[in-house]
C-alpha cells in the first residue's frame, strides 16, 4: 500500500506576517541561507494584512517555457525545480514571467533559485519546512481528506485566472465553497492607480462598494484632535 498523497495548501487570510516560513526556508539544503518564500505586506497603510507566497508549481510552468536555456525542469511529481546550474544564464525571464512572482535570480551565482517544495525534505517523507513551522496553518501540508475535514468552511481549488490566462497549479488555495477559480483581474484595480497607496485607496473603495458588514460600528469613535505643530521634516529613508 502506498502512502497517502500529501498536498500543499495555502490560505492567505491566515497569514500573520510572522515570517517563520521565510526564516525556516533558509534551512533548505538546496538553497541554504537564502529564503525562497516571500511574505509581503499587502497594504501597510490600511491594515496589518500580509500574505505568504511559495511556488505554486504550475502544471504548465510559465517560467520553464519562457526559459531560453531549457534550464527549468519539472519532475515526475510535478515539482518545478530551481534552474539547472550548468544551463542557467540568469537572464531573469522566469522571474518576470512567473505569474506568482516566485523565482529569484541570484546574479552572484548566476542561477535562478526557487521554492522546490523542500525537495530535500519531501523526498525523505518529511513536510516542507514552511508548512511545518507556519504557526497559523496559512501554509499546510497534508492529505486532501485531512484538509477537507479540518476546514469545512473552505474548499481547495487550484485554478487561477490572470486576465484571460487560466493557470492550474499543483498547490491548492483555500476559498469559499462558491468560488471555483481565483480571479486576478488587475486592470480594474490598476486603471489610473499610480503607486501602492493609490492602489490601496482604489481597493478600499472596492470593498466599500461590495460591502463590509457594519462598517460604521467598526470604526473607533471620533476623537478631538490635537493641533498641528508644523516643523522641519526629516525622513527615515532607511525604513
Amino acid at each position, binding site marked *: 500500500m502506498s502512502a497517502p498523497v500529501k498536498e500543499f495548501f495555502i490560505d*492567505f*487570510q491566515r497569514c500573520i506576517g510572522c515570517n517563520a516560513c521565510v526564516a525556516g526556508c533558509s534551512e*533548505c*539544503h*538546496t538553497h*541554504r541561507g537564502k529564503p525562497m518564500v*516571500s511574505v*509581503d505586506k*499587502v497594504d501597510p497603510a490600511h491594515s496589518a*494584512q500580509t*500574505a505568504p507566497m511559495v511556488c505554486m508549481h504550475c502544471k504548465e510552468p*510559465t517560467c520553464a*517555457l*519562457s526559459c531560453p*536555456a*531549457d534550464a527549468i*525542469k519539472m519532475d515526475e511529481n510535478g515539482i518545478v*525545480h530551481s534552474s*539547472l546550474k*550548468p*544551463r542557467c*544564464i*540568469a*537572464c531573469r*525571464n522566469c*522571474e*518576470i*514571467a*512567473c505569474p*506568482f*512572482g516566485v523565482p529569484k535570480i541570484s546574479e*552572484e*551565482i*548566476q542561477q535562478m533559485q526557487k521554492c522546490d517544495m523542500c*525537495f*530535500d525534505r519531501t*523526498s*525523505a517523507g518529511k513536510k516542507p519546512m514552511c508548512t511545518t513551522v507556519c504557526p497559523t496553518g496559512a501554509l499546510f501540508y497534508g492529505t486532501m481528506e485531512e484538509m477537507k475535514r479540518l476546514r469545512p468552511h*473552505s474548499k481547495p481549488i487550484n485554478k487561477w485566472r*490572470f*486576465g*484571460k*490566462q487560466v493557470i492550474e497549479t499543483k498547490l491548492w488555495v483555500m*476559498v*469559499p465553497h462558491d*468560488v471555483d477559480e*481565483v*480571479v*486576478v483581474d*488587475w*486592470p480594474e484595480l*490598476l486603471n489610473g*492607480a*499610480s*503607486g*501602492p497607496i493609490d*492602489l490601496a485607496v482604489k*481597493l478600499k473603495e472596492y470593498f466599500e462598494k*461590495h460591502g*463590509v458588514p457594519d462598517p460604521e460600528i467598526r470604526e473607533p469613535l471620533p476623537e478631538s484632535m490635537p493641533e498641528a505643530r508644523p516643523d522641519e521634516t526629516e525622513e527615515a529613508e532607511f525604513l
Partner: protein
Amino acid sequence: MRELADTLRYFAGQLHWPSVRNASLLTALLVLAIVVGSRNLQNFDAALVGYTYACVAAAFAVFYRYSVWLTKPPTKKFWRRGWQLCFQPALWKNLRSPRILGEAVTRKLVVQDFVWRRSPARWLGHMLIAAGCLLAFAITFPLVFGWIHFEMGAVEPDHTYIVSVFGFHVHELPLAGFFSWLVFHGLVVASFMVIPGVMIVMYRRMMEEGATAVQRFSRDFLPLILLFVVSFSGLLLWVSYEYLEGYFFTALAQFHAWSVIALLLYLPFGKLFHIFQRPASLGVSYYKAANADKDPARCPVTGEAFAPKMQTDDLKEVLGELDFDYSAPDGKGPAWNEVSPRGKRILIARAHSIARKHKFD
C-alpha cells in the same frame, strides 16, 4: 533517465526537419574540412578512424540539438537580440561592444567567478574538469581529423619531429626537451586535471544533502563516470606504454577508444551540452549593458523598477508565441508580466481577499 529519454525522442519520432537540414549542412562542412585539412586524407591516421566517426556523429547531434534549441521562442528571441545588440552602432561608440564581450567572456567563460561563489571547492573541481577537457579536445580533435600531423625529422644532431598543421610544415620540434614532452604528454596532463576534478565534484555530490536531494544518475553521475573512465583508461595507457613495456596495451587501447566514443556520443544529450549552450550568457550581458541607461519597466503596483523595458516587451511577445495570454482583459492596462514579482504577489493576496469577499472563515 528521463532527460535521456526526452532527448532520444527527438530522434525517435519528432525529428525537426529544418534542424536536420542545418545539422547535415554543418556536418558536411566538417567532413569537408577533415578531407581538405588532412590533405585528402593523406595525413589521416587510420588507427583513429573510430574516433573520427564518433566525432562526426557527435557533431551532427550537437548541431541538430543546437538548431532545435534555437527554434524555441525565448531562445530565438535572445539569440537575435544578442547579435543585434552586439552589432548595435550605439554600442560601438568607444568600442563598448568588444569591451562588453571581453569582460563577459573573461568572467563568465574563463574565470567563472560565479561558480566560485557557489562554492570554492566546486569551482576548483569544475575548473579542473573544464580545463582538462578543453586541453584534451584541443589535442584530440586536430589529431583525429588529420589536421595536425607529426613526421620524423632530422636525426642529427638531435632527433626532431616535424609538425604540420593542415598539411603545412610549421615547426620542427626536438624530441627531447620540456616543450615536446608537454606536447606528447598533453593528454596525460589533461587526465591529471580531470581525475582530481571529478573526485572533488563526486565527493560533493555524495556528501552534500542539497546535492543528494535533487541529483539524478543520468544527469549528474553519468557524465562524471564517463569522464573518469576516459581519463583513467587514458592514464593507464600511458603507464602501460611508458613503464610496463606495453603490458595489456592493446586491450586497454580498445577500451579507451570505446570510452571516448561513448563520451563523444553523450556530449549532445546530457549535461555536457552546456559547453555549447553557455555562451548564450554573453547575450544576457549585452541585454543588460544596452539597457543600463534606458528607462526601466516600472511596476504599476509598487512603483519599483524591476526589469529592462526591452525585456518585458520581448517577453510579452515570447509569451504570446508560447500561447500564453497574460494581457489585460480589457486590452488596455498593462500585461501581467509588466507587474513586478512583488506587485503580483500583492495583487494575488488582494484577489484572494476578494474571492473570500473580505470575510474570514
